[in-house]
């Protein structure tokens, strides 16, 4: 088993070395950034002062200086989380995934392997498992270190009354990073087996992976967010600070007949229905429309993580399983 795994790594030594180096660099960067932000992190009291928008707490010069000095150091950690943490699972998944079947077919080594073993499922398993294990170990290490680093770099997320729930790190740390890596690996292995050419398979897999990153992931987060959203009724004129959760937060207006409207549509609707303008519209809205803030509490972050990880790793696993019948039926070149 170990000998077979070592053979697999030697077959793909270039990709193994590159991805190992990337993971190691990311891990070291996260550790260095963690050390820096931990050392520069102001005391909790300073953060409480910093986020006290109502000004009930005195903003001491010492705290102010410490908080201002912290921002550049936190920026260092921010760079490790994004773009490095965001891109790492895709790079690792694509680099390790495409050659597993795609290059074997392209270089015609599959013909030798498949002429030695009629059981192609066993062959694929022997090639796939070591690469999957390598990807998982590397990504778990990187994801854990980035998560610790991000936690240290965003202390206000976890303490004090001024905390700001944020989903900005979703996908760049913790289990979501690993889930995205499994998905990218699944896409790459499957497309590689279908196409049997390394470069086109890499290009198509990259397009699919980045389509997920820029379209699928925000869409998925909106779906998950809508399930976890908390609707809070607020006054129509209320301009106070809102809970802000990136990509999830929105305002909605509900007509007394049940219809809902977005910010940009509600005024036009009110003008049409009341047949009036100016303050008369505001009065009509007071009587007929209720305004809601739709937000996702920070406590739901864990649910977000689990849901996205289940979906992405599920897609990856399904594609890996679908590769087996593809390989079983495929011509070797």
């Amino acid at each position, binding site marked *: 088993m170990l*000998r*077979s795994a070592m*053979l697999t790594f*030697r*077959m793909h*030594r270039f990709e193994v070395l590159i991805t190992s180096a990337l993971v190691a660099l990311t891990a070291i960067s996260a550790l260095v950034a963690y050390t820096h932000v931990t050392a520069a992190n102001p005391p909790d009291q300073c953060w409480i002062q910093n986020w006290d928008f109502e000004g009930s707490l005195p903003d001491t010069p010492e705290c102010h200086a410490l908080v201002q000095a912290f921002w550049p150091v936190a920026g260092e950690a921010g760079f490790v989380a994004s773009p490095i943490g965001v891109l790492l699972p895709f790079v690792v998944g694509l680099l390790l995934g495409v050659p597993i079947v795609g290059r074997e077919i392209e*270089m*015609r*080594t*599959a*013909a*030798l*392997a*498949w*002429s*030695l*073993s*009629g*059981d192609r499922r066993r*062959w694929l398993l*022997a090639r796939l498992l070591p690469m999957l294990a390598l990807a998982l170990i590397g990504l778990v290490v990187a994801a854990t270190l980035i998560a610790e680093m991000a936690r240290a770099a965003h202390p206000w997320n976890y303490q004090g009354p001024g905390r700001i729930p944020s989903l900005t790190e979703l996908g760049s740390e913790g289990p979501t990073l690993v889930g995205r890596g499994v998905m990218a690996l699944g896409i790459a292995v499957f497309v590689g087996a279908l196409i049997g050419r390394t470069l086109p398979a890499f290009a198509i897999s990259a397009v699919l992976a980045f389509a997920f990153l820029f379209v699928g992931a925000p869409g998925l987060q909106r779906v998950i967010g809508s399930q976890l959203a908390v609707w809070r009724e607020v006054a129509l004129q209320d301009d106070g600070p809102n809970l802000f959760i990136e990509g999830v937060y929105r305002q909605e207006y509900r007509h007394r007949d049940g219809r809902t409207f977005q910010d940009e549509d509600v005024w036009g609707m009110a003008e049409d229905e009341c047949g009036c303008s100016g303050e008369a519209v505001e009065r009509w809205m007071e009587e007929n429309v209720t305004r809601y803030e739709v937000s996702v509490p920070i406590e739901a972050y864990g649910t977000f993580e689990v849901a996205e990880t289940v979906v992405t790793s599920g897609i990856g696993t399904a594609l890996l399983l679908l590769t087996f019948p593809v390989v079983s039926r495929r*011509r*070797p070149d």
Partner: protein
Amino acid sequence: MSDPTPVLEAVSVSKRYRRSGTWALRDVDLAILAGTITALVGPNGAGKSTLLRSFLGFEQPTAGVVRVMGIDPQVDRKEAIRRVGYVSQSTGLYRGLSVSDHLDLAGSLRPGFDRELASGRLDELGIPLGQRAGELSGGQQAHVALSIALGTRAPVLLLDEPLASLDPLARHDFLNVLVSEVRGRGATALLSSHIVSDVETACDAIAVLGSGRVMLHRPIAATLAEHRVARAGSEAASDVIASFGRQGGERVTLVRSTDPSLQAPSLEELVMGYLSASRPGSEAGLGRAA
């Protein structure tokens, strides 16, 4: 004496590639007997590789059936492949793996792989086990692929143009190893090639494939004895296979005859005659002669 049971069978096999729409094989019938070394010859595109790959289940016939020792690889690929050792023209070696790694790989994929046999052969040929395959010469790579195929101890060897990229000395060495191993353990080999002169001494039988059809399949000695070449125009029409130009420009006709006054053909001339007969629009009388 060969066992009359066919170990490789193709029954009315046709293969049409969907993308190009071309027929690689048309109604091919072939039975390779146990213990023989058969040369499968034909020009590029004749369907040699398609036929060999069909025996491994790499190609699915559009019609007909192939069998390896009675097993249809489309029905039970695992069992069919267990009986076959295969060498492809490209050798299929991993450029970045050492020769020793290849033997390990073969051992992990094929139960009962005889690593000692394979490494012993490579030692005899002076091929270093620690060398990467990508650093070996074409001849050495072919020998590694052959040693792996021999190490499977499969009763059937399929060799798809393994000589194509080799120099004459390397071809000679390769065939020597092949013949001694196959004869030594009573295996059966089907060797495709378009270098006819090389296979003459190594093979017992020849199968000529032209335009996807089997034009001839006979023991080499017998078929040479049954044919003659005559100057074009002097032959009896009923015995004509086909006319073709010899090297040097002389036009001759291959005829089915044992007439001692006519010249015996070389194996190359025999193949040329049958391949000429397979060309579309040929005036040959293959049907009449057969």
